[in-house]
């Protein structure tokens, strides 16, 4: 194979590293997006035998947002294999024990249950906060867009913006706020 063809193949099958910020995101919606990048479904060269999946680094997994009262009511099942080894753990308990488990289980559930699943899951790195190791962060060259809008906290808007923002109405000067 000539050098040009070798290099072209290297580039076409290169594995990219993507980063995804899980803050305020629903893990099950995000899992659908993340699984596409992990399996390589976003590439036109996709084939299940091709090993064309990319690496996804998920950060801020501690700040995920489950819907409704799922934190209180969703239970994760685990069986050790031994008799009497069934356990039902609620979402908030699991999250306290290991903040990366919920998003990991969500991505695992989103994928097809074939023999490639375990191998593909090894390409997913989850970090509970913003703290990512240097060498992993250096590899990352693309960011996956979130699904949900992260609402801006009112006390985190800078002062100049609040002062110059156009107002529809304003209280008169001598009005006393209760």
């Amino acid at each position, binding site marked *: 194979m*000539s*050098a040009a063809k070798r*290099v072209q193949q*290297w580039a076409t099958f*290169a594995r990219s590293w993507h980063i995804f910020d899980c803050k305020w995101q629903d893990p099950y919606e995000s899992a659908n997006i993340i699984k596409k990048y992990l399996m390589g479904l976003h590439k036109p060269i996709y084939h299940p035998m091709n090993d064309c999946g990319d690496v996804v680094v998920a950060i801020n997994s501690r700040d995920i947002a489950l819907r409704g009262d799922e934190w209180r009511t969703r239970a994760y099942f685990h069986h050790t294999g031994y008799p009497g080894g069934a356990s039902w753990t609620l979402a908030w308990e699991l999250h306290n024990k290991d903040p990366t488990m919920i998003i990991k289980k969500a991505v695992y559930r989103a994928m097809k249950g074939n023999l490639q699943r375990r191998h593909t899951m090894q390409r997913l790195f989850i970090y509970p906060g913003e703290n990512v190791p240097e060498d992993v962060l250096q*590899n990352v*060259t693309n960011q996956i867009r979130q699904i949900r809008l992260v609402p801006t906290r009112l006390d985190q808007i800078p002062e100049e913006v609040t002062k110059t923002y156009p107002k529809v109405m304003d209280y008169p000067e001598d009005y006393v706020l209760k």
Partner: protein
Amino acid sequence: MALIRRCVPLFAKVVRIHPVTTQAQKIHRWVAPTLMELKRREKKVGGKKINPRNTFLEWNLEAELYAFAQRLNEDFDSDLLLQAFTDRSYVIKEEMKQKELEFDIKMKDNRELVEIGDQFINAYIQNYLEVVLPKFPMEGVKGVRKFLTSEAILANVSLHLGTKDIILAAEYPVDNFILANTFKAIVGALLDSSGEERAAHFVRDFVITQLQGQDVNEYLPIEDPWSMLTSIVKKDGTTIEPRLIGETGRNTLLACYRVGLYVDKKMVSSGFGESVAIAKEMAAREALKKIFGTEDTMKPINFKLDGIPKPTSQTRYQITAS
């Protein structure tokens, strides 16, 4: 009633559908044991005995030679054609046989025709390539010509033209060297029989078309593309700026880098690589391909030029040994 019932199958047409052209799904029981037994017998004798075609009962050398000429749509002088197919080894073998029988039929062998044909093929291909790849350096043109006139290519062409059965040689099956020589001899015979133009078209249609689908740049070896590129560009007075325009997985084994070359802030070419140095080298090679007019998106090589084309005096880059 009973009579009618019994007669119905006699009158009604019993239509059985036998599939005619579909293959049988079943492989018969006797197929595998038969093949195994045949293989055993072959091994015992020591390999398959393949008889050369000209020892068969249905063989007419004159008819084969005529058909060969007609198939290629060419006119050959029949003596020259027979001479082209006779190999030196066959002549030697015949002379040894004839010594014993005290015969004396002189058979001409194809050595002179091979030389004439070889010279013509090389000259014509050199000419053609110079016209068809006007900016390609001479070393590259020479490399492509060497590839096209290599023994493997000419032997392959010769095989697919049907010379394998007609060649008169001492041992069968014929090896590549004899096949390639036969092809050159045929070109020599055609040159003598029909003239330069017809021989030129023959070489063009069978040898030069082997370039179809091949990357011409493989036959131009460049050791240091970056220094070559800078020296070319220096003559015009501009500088090339290499920039890293993409990377994936820097700390991994599968790291991929993309380097782009810019002249006056406009991208000239880009290259990929396992490391930044390799990517820069490949980008330089791409830029050189564009200068030589042989990039991947070049216009396909024209295989329809008639006669003996004349190369125009265009500027070709000279790779001087520094």
